[in-house]
């Protein structure tokens, strides 16, 4: 960059240089900005096409319909930033959901049943974390074992769906807090709370910085004296806990537990996290980005149902978006490597 002495030129270059500085310092934010841009484009396009797309009811429903996936994606973000992966989340959601329904049906108080099912999900995560950390099992395989385990456990609890009549759980879904024409349910508040806590932990705590360090370079993180073992196990526990929480939200949402819930959700969650700008090689990513990813996912689904097209298009479009983002990520990483 050339620094010119003259004042008018200086302001021009300083704008350019400020742009370059911003790009080089916040290059990892670019994919997330791209996701926000895509979300806005979809919103604008749908509004122009349908005329009645951006309505308070629609926006509120977006959060309500995707609360479970959002919570799951936050947990997944933690795992992916450590360069791991957690395939078990969909099954854990089904298992904890049906377990909760079964406990409530057999008369357990919701005040006990909900903590128990949350701990159950965290325990599956703990198992995966222990396998990954202490037995050097690849995260992919360890969480695959978790997937099988939780799916089978769900069917052991019940092979049929169980209705939930507990007022506390149903309240999570049915209560509407109106803000003007918008409304939000306790499940939506829960999801936003999880996002807020997740984002805070990642950005402002020592634990969060350790997670980024592990994903960036585990060897260096170890040499820096960071506690790798505890952190890596903790992210899987967090992911399992979030999956259980999404099991609670989904049970409230559908008013029943069903052992077939959540098949393929782990892929949706991974796709949302990647679209939100988190790098699958670990080390870069944002919880808020994952929220954007989930909203992109949910908006595409809404648009497709508005168009009356087949829902199978959702998967195809999300797959293509995923591809686009992976190629963009690849380019970013390649650029970073070249600079090095």
């Amino acid at each position, binding site marked *: 960059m050339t620094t010119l002495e003259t004042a008018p030129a200086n302001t021009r270059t300083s704008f350019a240089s400020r742009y370059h500085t911003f790009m080089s310092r916040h290059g990892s934010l670019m994919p997330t900005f791209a996701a926000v841009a895509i979300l806005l484009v979809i919103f604008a396009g749908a509004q122009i096409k349908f005329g009645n797309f951006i309505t308070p009811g629609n926006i509120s429903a977006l959060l309500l319909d995707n609360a479970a996936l959002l919570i799951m994606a936050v947990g997944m973000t933690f795992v992916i930033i450590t360069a791991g992966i957690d395939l078990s989340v969909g099954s854990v959601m089904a298992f904890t959901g049906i377990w909760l329904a079964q406990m409530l049906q057999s008369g357990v108080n919701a005040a006990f049943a909900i903590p128990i099912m949350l701990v159950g999900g965290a325990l599956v995560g703990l198992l995966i974390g222990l396998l990954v950390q202490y*037995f050097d099992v690849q995260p992919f395989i360890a969480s*695959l074992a978790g997937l099988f385990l939780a799916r089978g456990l769900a*069917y052991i609890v019940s092979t049929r769906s169980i209705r939930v009549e507990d007022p506390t759980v149903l309240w999570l879904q049915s209560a509407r807090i109106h803000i003007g024409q918008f409304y939000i349910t306790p499940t939506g508040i829960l999801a936003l709370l999880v996002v807020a806590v997740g984002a805070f932990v990642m950005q402002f705590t020592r634990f969060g910085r350790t997670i980024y360090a592990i994903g960036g370079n585990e060897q260096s993180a170890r040499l820096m004296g960071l506690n790798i073992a505890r952190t890596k196990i903790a992210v899987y526990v967090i992911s399992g806990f979030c999956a259980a929480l999404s099991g609670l939200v989904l049970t409230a949402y559908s008013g029943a537990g069903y052992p077939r819930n959540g098949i393929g959700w782990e892929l949706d969650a991974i796709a949302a996290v990647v679209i939100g700008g988190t790098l699958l090689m670990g080390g870069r990513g944002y919880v808020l980005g994952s929220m954007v990813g989930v909203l992109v996912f949910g908006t595409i689904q809404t648009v497709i149902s508005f168009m009356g097209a087949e829902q199978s298009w959702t998967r195809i479009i999300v797959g293509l978006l995923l591809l686009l983002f992976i190629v963009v990520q690849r380019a970013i990483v390649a650029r970073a490597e070249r600079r090095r």
Partner: protein
Amino acid sequence: MKTIVKHRLFWPSAALVALIAINAAVRPNFVKITMLDGHLYGNLIDILRQSAPLMLVSLGMTIVIATRGIDLSVGAIMAVSGAVALQIIAGSSEPDNLGVVAWAVFAALAVSLVLGAWNGFLVSVVGIQPIIATLVLMLAGRGVALLITGGKITTVNSSPYKYLSTGYLLLLPFAFLLAMAIVAIVGAVERRSALGVLTEAVGINPEASRLAGVRSRGIVWSAYVGSGVLAGIAGILYSSNIKAADANNAGQLIELYAILAVVMGGTSLMGGKFTIAGTVIGVLFIQTLDSTILFLGISPDQSPVFFAIVVIIVVLIQSPSMHRWVRGLKHSPDKQSPVDAPSDAEVAA
């Protein structure tokens, strides 16, 4: 004796034999094979017949894993291939015509080949991580299959097509013979030519093999093409067996079972050395375990718990830290020589 125990196929084979022995002890009928109309019947024959789709998918997966890759899209490719084949047969006026069936199979395989080539392109040319590259198709593939079938489950009644999965040829089920023939062909191509060694070289150290002049791009690409085509054949067998193209359930979770079969057979997920014979044993073990679970009266839905336990046991046996621990039990701890460490790494690699 020691060389037998040391052989890489010893433990997978022992597990398979033990499982069959347990079954035979509990229910003698299990190993009984009867002859009827020149065909063999029995539980073991059923296992062979049903293992064909998983066998083909796992075969492709073995080669892909040997290149340090993974192919998650096989289940989706199965769904697409079955959908293409059945849509063509259902759309024709004479579903029993051999020509129609041959054209349907050809079209399904061509589509599978294109999908496999797409995966290979993303991995070998664009340079995307295999898990992610194939995840794209895993997500989108089922959507494509649903579009092909129009969201419905296409059913057909075509005897030549049905023959593929339920027919018999010379005593044994045709599907099994087909799978074994393909295993033999792939095995011969990999092991009788340099391809197998080059594949292992790429998997063990991509950079070193590139410097040694190995054209890794073509080798990796062909592995994904092969995996796609094999998944396509598996999809045809699956849809032929149920006489329907079920875009949602065809090949559901098969990628995970295939990976399990490959790992059980002794091929490491870290790439490099692979064993096709081991994969065959792994597939037979999984299929036998599946049948055992059914026999125990456990709902097939609940069987994942058993597979989870098997996965955990297998990965623990393979894990280097477990090896260190066992060695520590055998020798007193102070004797643990540093020489042990590299051999650990070898087991892991």
